[in-house]
């Protein structure tokens, strides 16, 4: 395949992103069923989300409020009056064989976000953010790939059916040019952060609570007509968004340079091979026979409600980042690492709980990051709170534990043995700084290492390390090394 640089010589990429966000509401969009992830299949269902004959939807007010807050945070206008529609198509994971969704009357429309990339800022226009319900989840059994082809049968879990979704659709992004893949990634990353700050979703891409479809088209340089686009699905991480867009730009350039046409279709991203393959063809002729949902009444949020939500929006993430970076005196690189690791909230709370900024950063980005990687979980999922991290750092600062002991205390906290203080007490990990006990140990060390003692007496202070090591060994590492050094030098100085 041709290189990215070659592709860009002839063509300008235009991208568009459709992001589906599962809201973190307690109940589903149109019924009272729970939304907990990972529950036993088909245990969180009722007549309504199973689409049983006679059942009816009732709109979840908390979902509407979340949708409006998302819209406001994206700079959108909030509709004064809007409706749901039915999107009609047959599929076994769709209980009613229509999806209740917004169509031409979205709750939020016409917004924009500034996306920061290395080389500056790109404005991404927001076309709309609308509410809809999720479908059930099909599990295809018996095939090699887990996809429907080759499967012997399929199982459907309707726990997901009816979970509230917000679909956020960008306008075509035309100004990004060679940075298009980077902009795509940064946009989704920033959106994710915004949604977290709003507290409306847990935005776990790997669990599907944030799903991204990337639209890509190419047009000859200088043209202002949009080319034929493809829609790539199954991009489940920030990294794969960037890779998939980049790949699709190269693939389409190759098709066009060969004198062929890009087929308007859905494509499937393969994380392992780094390519997209053709899914179903998607023509504009696909007819969902939308019409207004007669089982629901229109949504007409009062302006007072909208104003109240606007007034309580959290600080925009980029403004907050700038403010915190300045307050914490982090370098650009340090700040980017913290943000990239998803540790911003954790570090902030750790500092709020009393830790120094650098210490807080260090704990979350080294020891705890290592542990999260090893366990295959997110930092936030580790069984330790920012308050406990701050408590541990306070023990270090007070000289009550040294670095080595601190790591053992951390182990204990992660193992569920309680707070750092409780672990120290239970495991007996506190350093010995009692001069009586230390002095005795120092005297024993001097006595059993006369040659070393002699060197120190002769002014070779560096040799003190050997005696300190001996004391530490005797006290199983639980000695205050600084005090031991002082005692050694006192006696031999």
């Amino acid at each position, binding site marked *: 395949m041709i290189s990215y640089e070659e592709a860009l010589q002839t063509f300008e990429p235009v991208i568009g992103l459709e992001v589906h966000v599962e809201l973190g509401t307690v109940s589903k969009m149109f019924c009272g069923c729970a939304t907990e992830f990972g529950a036993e299949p088909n245990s969180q269902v009722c007549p309504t989300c199973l689409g*049983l*004959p*006679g059942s009816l939807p009732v709109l979840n007010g908390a979902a509407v409020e979340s949708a409006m807050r998302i819209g406001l945070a994206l700079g959108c206008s909030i509709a004064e009056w809007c409706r749901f529609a039915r999107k*009609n198509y*047959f599929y076994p994971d769709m*209980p009613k064989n229509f999806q209740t969704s917004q169509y031409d009357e979205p709750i939020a429309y016409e917004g924009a976000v500034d996306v920061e990339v290395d080389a500056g800022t790109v404005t991404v226009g927001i076309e709309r953010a609308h509410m809809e319900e999720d479908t059930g989840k099909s599990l295809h059994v018996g095939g090699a790939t887990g996809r429907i082809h080759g499967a012997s049968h399929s199982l*459907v879990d309707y726990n997901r059916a009816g979970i509230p979704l917000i679909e956020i659709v960008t306008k075509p992004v035309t100004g990004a040019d060679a940075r298009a893949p980077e902009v795509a990634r940064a946009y989704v990353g920033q959106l994710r952060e915004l949604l977290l700050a709003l507290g409306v979703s847990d935005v776990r891409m790997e669990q599907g609570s944030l799903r991204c479809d990337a639209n890509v088209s190419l047009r000859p340089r200088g043209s202002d007509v949009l080319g034929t686009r493809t829609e790539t699905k199954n991009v489940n991480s920030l990294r794969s968004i960037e890779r998939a867009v980049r790949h699709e730009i190269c693939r389409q350039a190759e098709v066009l340079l060969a004198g062929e046409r890009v087929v308007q279709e859905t494509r499937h991203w393969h994380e392992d091979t780094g390519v997209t393959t053709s899914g179903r063809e998607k023509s504009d002729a696909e007819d969902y*026979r*939308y*019409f207004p949902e007669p089982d629901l009444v229109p949504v007409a949020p009062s302006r007072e409600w909208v104003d109240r939500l606007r007034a309580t929006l959290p600080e925009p993430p980029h403004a907050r980042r700038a403010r915190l970076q300045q307050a914490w005196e982090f370098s650009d690189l340090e700040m980017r690492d913290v943000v990239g690791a998803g540790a911003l909230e954790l570090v902030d709370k750790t500092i709020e709980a009393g830790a120094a900024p650098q210490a807080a950063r260090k704990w979350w980005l080294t020891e705890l990051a290592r542990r999260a990687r090893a366990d295959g979980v997110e930092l936030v999922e580790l069984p330790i709170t920012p308050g406990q991290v701050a408590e541990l750092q306070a023990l270090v600062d007070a000289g009550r534990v040294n670095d080595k002991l601190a790591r053992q205390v951390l182990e204990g906290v992660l193992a569920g043995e309680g707070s750092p203080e409780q672990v120290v007490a239970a495991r007996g990990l506190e350093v010995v700084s009692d001069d009586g006990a230390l002095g005795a140990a120092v005297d024993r060390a001097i006595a059993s290492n006369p040659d070393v003692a002699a060197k120190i007496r002769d002014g070779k202070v560096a040799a003190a390390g050997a005696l300190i090591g001996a004391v530490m060994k005797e006290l199983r590492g639980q000695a205050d090394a600084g005090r031991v050094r002082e005692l050694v030098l006192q006696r031999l100085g």
Partner: protein
Amino acid sequence: MTPLSPADVTTMSASALADALVAGDVSSAEATGAYLDRIAAVDGAVHAFLHVDADGALATAAEVDRRRAAGADLHPLAGVPLAVKDVVATQGLPTTAGSRLLQGWVPPYDATIVARIRAAGLPVLGKTNMDEFAMGSSTEHSAYGPTHNPWDLDRIPGGSGGGSAAAVAAFEAPLAIGTDTGGSIRQPAAITGTVGVKPTYGGVSRYGLIALASSLDQAGPVTRTVLDAALLHELIGGHDRLDSTSINAPTPAVVAAAHRADVAGMRIGVVRELGGEGYQPGVRARFDEALALLTGAGAEVVEVSCPHFEYALAAYYLILPSEASSNLARFDAMRYGLRVWPEGKPEASAEDVMLATRAAGFGDEAKRRIILGTYALSSGYYDAYYGSAQKVRTLIARDFEQAFTHADVLVSPTAPTTAFRLGEKLDDPLAMYLNDIATIPANLAGVPGISLPSGLADEDGLPAGFQALAPATHDDRLYRVGATLEALLADRWGGPLLDRAPVLTGEVLA
């Protein structure tokens, strides 16, 4: 006093039965037993029921009797049995909506109105026959065979709720639940000489009604007297948080209105467009007599015009099929109901099974409407069909608004003709659709309507119906007019119209 015979029990009105239960003249178990016996005797010929739940009904009756004996505070209708149209979900009782697609389906939940009925202690006798998914005006489109009109077993009982109307007319139940999307309560009531009310849209919960057309469907009472209808209406009506289109306001005082039975000073508007040509002379004659009686009782009769009503049928047959095509999409063999494996396709896909099941499971009328609706919603046709129909709907609602500035209620014959013969219109959908010409406008505008017997047409001796319509949320006016007219007609006939129905015994049933 002489004890009540089973025949006394089954021919008395529901309110009279309720009084007898309170007085201890009869127990609910006896009354329910009498009705079950009546069903056993005549339903072979009438076929009003698709499913009879004798055990369940008797268990409820025994429980009510026990509670009454213990001095419990009971609902006024407690212990009065009733029948439920098979389009309403009943937990533990088969619910088919008259379709093969739902043969054997037993809902795991109760419709809100059924929950209210059960909570009030009314024994549910069973589920009544209907046109498949409530599509029809004769009950001939039931997948389980037609219901016969108790007045003449060779004739249709109306539809789609022919089973509920026939059950009440044949004294197989004192009360029944119907649903009315374009006249499915009122037209069968007219055809069988019974009373039927379609409440204001949103006045009675739709939760648990298998939807035909969501913006038109409304459940209501099917009874033998206007007061009975009011009692049942009051029981099932009122706000339900499970139905977003439910009106959050108390039910109008319908029982009080039925007791008041007074039309003095009321302005009664005769709709010029709902009468005249196309209406059977005997139906018109009974209608005119009813008007004269109401005038005599102090009402002022005025003529009003609703110019857009002539487009109502056309708009209805775009809106209904559009919504129905979507509502009926869920019957796909994946989770419940009929499943047909395509012949010669052992490796059939889910889509193949859906196609085969729907092809085998839906009757012709359902297919006709699904195809119509799918077409009307298709891109490129949506504006011309569904969009235009919605505009007509708005114009019809405005016609009503305008007319209600001149009149407190609007009246017309309920249906243009009396009961036709089974099979007579089965192959002519348009002729069948015309039965609902006078009832459809109320559904399009969401206003309430009542049908009550106006007498027998001279040419065939069959019942004709009188329809009254009121502004939305003013259902009480229907009961004032209905109860007044009912009393005046009873005086004239010397008793209820149903007393003149042929007795379903002996050779009639043979």
